[in-house]
């Protein structure tokens, strides 16, 4: 059964430049999906539509059979979808663990020791205790990417959206990140949707959707 369903999605910038037209995809839990396509094909736009950061001009998006246009998008974003942005979008004045805890707070997670829990998640993405206490700008690109993943995982969402998660990373680190996604899909039954240019990432996915520029 699909956790997410896109039905004839259409989107245009400024109501003039059409980016997406009649896109219909289905996504299931426990699988990794790769959305590929040339630059300007609308991959990041599609990710924004799925995460509820913007709304489609045509068609509908269903999350667990509910039209996301009719649900509280803030609640949807804070609890059911974890987004890993291409530029991470972590708060630079907070350290790694504080960024993770902030997402848990926003999701209203009721856990006694949030800090311990956040440290555990950071450990899962191979970020040790010392680095977890560093300010974001004191971390490398790969480490920031892990913090962004940890943040997306912290409130245990059903869907994880990742925009070019390996774009800024070297080969070894990219492989590590892909293995994290694989583990999340297989062991934690998450639906992983990755927007990528990378053939390696596409190869690791269970299904690949290709967007073509209009």
């Amino acid at each position: 059964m699909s956790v997410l369903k896109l039905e004839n999605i259409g989107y245009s910038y400024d109501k003039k430049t059409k980016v997406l037209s009649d896109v219909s995809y289905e996504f299931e839990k426990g699988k990794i999906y790769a959305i590929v396509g040339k630059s300007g094909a609308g991959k990041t736009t599609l990710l924004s539509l799925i995460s509820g950061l913007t709304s489609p001009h045509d068609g509908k998006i269903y999350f667990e059979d509910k039209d996301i246009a009719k649900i509280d998008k803030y609640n949807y974003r804070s609890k059911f979808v974890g987004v890993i942005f291409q530029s991470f979008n972590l708060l630079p004045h907070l350290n790694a663990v504080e960024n993770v805890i902030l997402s848990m707070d926003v999701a209203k997670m009721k856990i006694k020791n949030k800090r311990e829990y956040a440290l555990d998640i950071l450990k899962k993405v191979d970020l040790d205790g010392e680095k977890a206490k560093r300010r974001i700008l004191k971390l490398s690109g790969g480490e920031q990417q892990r913090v962004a993943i940890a943040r997306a995982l912290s409130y245990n969402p059903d869907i994880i959206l990742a925009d070019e998660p390996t774009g800024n990373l070297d080969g070894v680190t990219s492989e590590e990140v892909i293995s994290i996604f694989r583990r999340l899909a297989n062991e934690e039954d998450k639906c992983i949707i990755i927007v990528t240019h990378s053939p390696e990432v596409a190869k690791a996915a269970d299904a690949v959707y290709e967007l073509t520029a209009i």
Partner: protein
Amino acid sequence: MYIIKNALKSIARSKGRNILIGIIIVVIAISSCIALSIKNAADASAAQGLQQLNVTATISVDRQKLMQAAQGQSQADIRTQMQKYEGLSLTDMQKYAGSKYVKSFNYTLTSSMSKSGTLTPFTTTASSPSSTPAPANSNAFAGNRTGADTFRFSAMGEQGDFSVTGASSEAAMPDFVSGTSQVTSGQIFDFTSADYSCIISSDLATFNSIKIGDKITLANPNTSTEIYWFTVVGIYTNSASTQSTNGPRFSASMDPANHIYTSYNSLKSVTTTSASVATVTTDSTTGLSNTTALREQVSGKYVLPDAASLDSFKADASSMGLDPNYTVTSPDVTTYQHSLIPLKNLSDFASTLLLIVILIGGIILIVFNIFNIRERKFEVGVLTAIGMKKGKVAMQFVVELFVVTFISIIIGTSIGAVASVPTANMLLANQITAQQTQSTQQNQNFGRPQQGGNQGGFPGGFNAIAGNNANVSYVDQINAVMDLSILLQLIGLGILLTLLSSAAGVIFALRYEPLKILANRA
């Protein structure tokens, strides 16, 4: 809860920014605290002073009103019109004393009498001024006599050497009540009897070697053969007399030393006798009649429980039949209101200061907050992208500002509380100096001599005639102390400033779309 936590962390993180906001609010709080303290203290001081004021009122002819009504009429018509409205008779005055707003009523009868026998008025000039009985028709403004009992001082008579006052009670002798005058030898006369006993000043007693128990003779200035005997039962000292200068006077009776007090009944008996033996003549040219009877003036003073009763008494007297051409006035309230001018100016200044501080402070804070939120645009984008509602993001900014405001207000209020009393009194002193300088300058402009206290031999008169108020005793100390109401007002002000200044920032925050912010950043 996490909003407060985040807000506190954010404050701790951006120390420089928050210290700057804090300094602005501390300055606003200090200024507001001082302004509010001054305003409250000035208002309280005015209200309290008015409450404690011993308010007296008099009923007199509203001459201004009559003159306005008489505009365009001939002098003779105006005279006739004015003579209709002489001072109220004692019977009428007593009628209005029955008002429920009158606490007590006292009255005096005043007359002017001349020296007789060995008694000489006290004077410092070599040749003592003496009144000589004038021809009966010498008065340009003579009143028509309708009967001895209703004849009052409106018709001018000759000025005597002594001013004789008949008092109805102790309260009718305010100089003795206040302590300006004091019986130092003998005793006060019996207010109820008409035994012609009197008290005289120590100056007059020494000047004439008069002792307690001696008899003095006073004559009617209109006819020197009409003589009255009084027994001296007491001698008093008058500090106003002591302070008076030895300058020239128009008449000996103007010297406080020549002021003789007796009971109302004694003096009334004298004036009644005088009226019964008086000669009445009629001026062939004007047709006005004139009398040689002693002139008398009765004046009544109503003691009211408080200043608020003044208006009630006015209304009550009117409903009891007081002619609209008479007016009820209270010199005490007027004088007190005059004494409050510097305080009122200070209070107005405080209000203006408060308004300016709030306006300028508010504008600075609004601009500051708009820039602050614009700087934190990315934070707004990230927080809303991870699912924090815009309202909560805005709330976090409001809490941040509120905490900084609250701490700053406490600091500012503490400093303001300490500074308000000396600042208020310093500003008040400046106001008083400005007021006095204005009055002094006015006197100089009119060529009046610089006088202090007693007005050069015209006690209580010259100042009023000249219309200046240089010797008004201004309220010169206020207790500008912080109290709970000021603290609450400041907190209210803080909340208002926080809401006002953060509102602009919040509107900005609510307008941001997370996707746009993050896309721009990327």
